[in-house]
């Protein structure tokens, strides 16, 4: 279908504000492929009509929330239409006494949390850029943040979902109650499926009470061994930190500078967030300081109030796209017991290649993120081999490595998801069942799905 035909057909479905002026489409390019049309449906019915038309006409659809994760995934084979969900942004039901909320998918996490705040509740997911990231996008990318140590990820709090299928059929799964085993748990299927099986339009969550107080102990160490010893003692104590993240390399510097905290050259910092009843938080802080001293921390400082919020905002935001200086962001997942080893190798690789490298690791879950500067475009081959090397190390540790964000020219040289498992055959069959014409995010997901 020609660009004009497509605009006409879509125009018949949406109102004027529903279609972006053509000149602005380049801002919605993905993998440097600019869409022919950017549509902003305002109802579930409109999403349904758009998708039904797309399947009929073979239009490749890229669903989009706040645009914070458009760098995730391989370069799509085709980009015809971007479907933005930002106009579907209402909170539909908040049952405060039941601790549940039902919302449209285009609402940002920040807006949702503002709606929950009067009841002293929140959705305990903390991916980067909460003011832009939408609920639909967070679910589709299975985005989470440091709080997953205590609260888990989307799969632990999503109760129900409404999805528009590739052919435009609206289906729901789950419900609004906290226990529900009626039928297959389709919620799990859509979380992290990167919009390849349907477009998420509504979600129902279990929410959590906001902890009464929160405070962070930020400790620095001169070696990975000492930091590891400290983190291990905290994680294997009776304490229940809300989050615990280790920072190494350039991330300790950037965060240290922003917050005016000590920076240890070549050192490593551990930020432990405690929350809950005041007496418990004070005890956790006090005893963690004792552990700091026993494990040889260089320094430690307690952050409360705004300083506490700021540091976690900074840590969460480390992965965001920076148009000015594009970066490579890698995310490895290994066993918690191997996390520090990988922190060390990541740093060493960066030094070996003379690249400014930052590392953030969650030793409670085994996630190790690397942030690599890209100085010159001709570095791409070097970066590609770096990724392969690091991925090899993660795989040797029985883990995996995903490239979360990098320039298109680097994506052309590799698969961002990494090795394929024996379960890929089932995933392909699921994709065929749910999107037989392959119109949803074609080629962007694992194994070319």
């Amino acid at each position, binding site marked *: 279908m020609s660009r004009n035909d497509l605009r006409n057909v879509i125009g018949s479905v949406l109102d004027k504000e529903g279609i972006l002026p053509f000149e602005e489409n380049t801002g919605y390019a993905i993998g440097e492929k600019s869409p022919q049309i950017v549509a902003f449906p305002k109802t579930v019915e409109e999403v349904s009509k758009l998708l039904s038309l797309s399947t009929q006409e073979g239009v490749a659809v890229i669903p989009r929330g706040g645009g914070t994760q458009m760098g995730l995934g391989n370069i799509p084979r085709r980009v015809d239409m971007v479907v933005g969900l930002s106009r579907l942004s209402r909170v539909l039901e908040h049952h405060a*006494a*039941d*601790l*549940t909320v039902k919302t449209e998918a285009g609402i940002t996490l920040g807006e949702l949390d503002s709606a929950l705040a009067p009841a002293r509740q929140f959705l305990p997911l903390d991916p980067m850029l909460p003011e832009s990231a939408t609920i639909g996008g967070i679910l589709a990318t299975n985005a989470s943040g440091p709080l997953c140590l205590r609260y888990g990820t989307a*799969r*632990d709090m999503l109760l129900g979902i409404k999805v528009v*299928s590739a052919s435009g*059929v609206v*289906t*729901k*799964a789950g*419900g*609004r*109650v*906290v*226990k*529900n*085993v*009626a*039928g*297959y*748990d*389709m*919620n*799990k*299927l859509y*979380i992290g*499926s990167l919009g390849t*099986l349907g477009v998420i339009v509504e979600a129902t969550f279990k929410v959590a*009470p906001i902890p*009464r107080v929160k405070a962070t102990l930020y400790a620095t160490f001169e070696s990975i061994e000492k930091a590891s010893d400290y983190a291990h003692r905290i994680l*294997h104590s*009776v*304490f*229940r930190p809300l989050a615990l993240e280790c920072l190494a390399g350039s991330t300790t510097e950037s965060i240290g500078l922003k917050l005016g905290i000590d920076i240890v050259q070549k050192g490593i910092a551990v930020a432990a967030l405690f929350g809950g009843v005041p*007496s*418990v938080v004070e*005890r*956790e802080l006090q005893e963690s300081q004792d552990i700091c001293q026993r494990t040889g921390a260089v320094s430690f400082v307690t952050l409360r109030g705004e300083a506490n919020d700021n540091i976690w905002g900074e840590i969460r935001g480390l992965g965001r796209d920076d148009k000015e200086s594009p970066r490579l962001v890698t995310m490895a*997942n290994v*066993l*918690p017991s191997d996390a520090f080893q990988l922190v060390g190798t990541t740093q060493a690789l960066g030094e070996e290649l003379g690249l400014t490298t930052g590392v953030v690791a969650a030793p409670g879950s*085994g996630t190790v993120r690397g942030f690599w500067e890209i100085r010159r475009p001709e570095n791409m081959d070097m970066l590609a081999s770096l990724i392969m090397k690091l991925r090899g190390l993660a795989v040797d540790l*029985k883990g*995996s490595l995903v490239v979360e964000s990098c320039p298109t020219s680097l994506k052309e040289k590799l698969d961002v*998801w*990494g090795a394929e*498992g*024996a*379960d*890929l055959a*089932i*995933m392909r*069959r*699921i994709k*065929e*069942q*749910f999107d037989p014409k392959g119109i949803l995010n074609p080629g962007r*997901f*694992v194994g070319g799905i």
Partner: protein
Amino acid sequence: MEKQRLVRELVAIVGSKWVISNPEDLLVFEYDGSVSRGLPDVVALPSTVDEVSKIMRLAHQEGIPVVPRGSGTGLSGGSVPESGGIVLAFTRMNHILEIDPVNRLAVVEPGVVNIDLTSATSKYSLHYVPDPSSQRACTIGGNVAENAGGPHCLAYGVTTNHVLGTEVVLANGDVVWLGGKTCKPGYDLTGIIVGSEGTLGVVTKIIVRLMPDPESIETLLAIFKEMDKAASAVSAIIARGIIPAALEMMDRLTIQAVEPAIHAGYPAEAGAVLLIEVEGLKEEVAEQANDIEGICSAEGAMEVRRAKNALEKERLWAGRKNAIGAIGRLSPNYYLLDGVVPRTKLVEVMRKMADTGQRFGFQICNVFHAGDGNIHPNILFNTQVHGETQRVLQAGAEILKACVDAGGTITGEHGVGLEKREYMPWIFSDEDLEAMVRLRVAFTHGAPLNPGKIFPPRKARNE
């Protein structure tokens, strides 16, 4: 395939000792904990994944139904064969293969009994959270199939929240790992397998998450004259921002059944008992226990008891843990339901339930997970009375419909199985069910893996 040949082929795979085909021996495999009944043609007891794979391949070639089974404690007919075929009993695959205390996980075979895992990990001060009431008998494999819950799932989630990966034998005999010890990119197939009631594949290994034991636990028992007051205490506790580890309720009839059997010391005029457990660091636990005591008193509790030591804790739990057994003394049979309602609708739905009971002339005992809104009405009846089984099913349907009308669902932790498949259209549209069927086709290509479960018969035929 002719039965004798099937038996021969199975004997060749697992050995003659591990194939059961005598009609009288098969009777043991005819039922589970629900009201459903159905005989298998043959039972095989494999001991390795390789044997499971060979059996699955054989069944696939011959188009024979396969029904996986753990301990048979299921409550929805999930392991009851509807159309004969092979029952795969996992009794022999009951080994804990690995406990990794540092990474807080364990790898187990599906036949491991739930409580045995927690017993084995207790020396590391770790435990496996989901604790169905049948945990002394039920298997982890069965828990995975049904996505089982238990009293302690309020704060930490049900089985699916504690399973990291599974080794699965597909309908055609292929063996694949879904998920694993570490996160991997791709669809969350582990999340799909858990709760799929053995209809997508047969689980042969399970990686579970273990939780550290808390520093401190407080157990409280609050006695109320009226169920309504107990229910509003439940809402008030949650509204205060306290999520207890467990929050269980028993109603008047259950108390009357429990007291003579257990001698828990419940007053004769008690209309409802709440059993509440909070855990965590000692300061927080002490504060929350005080708050809960205050809330219960404010809501009109006759008495609030607090366990001072482990023995007293056991005593407070005794009434709850033995409730179903005690109910068994009241009536020759009981029909156990598993509806869920939003917590705030508990009172409303309990009233409707009492109504239904009266109209049908049945006594109904309630012992349930109040914190989750997961109700377990036990309808007392007698199969020997002509037509009573039919009427009890009708009354059950009416109660579950009331749950659905209140915004809830037909099953919170027991599964759909054979028992509730006809009720699926109450909560799901044809399109919703169609999406589930697509998922099934992707896994099984239409092979008869635990056929007849979950889907209303009309929907299943569309495959």
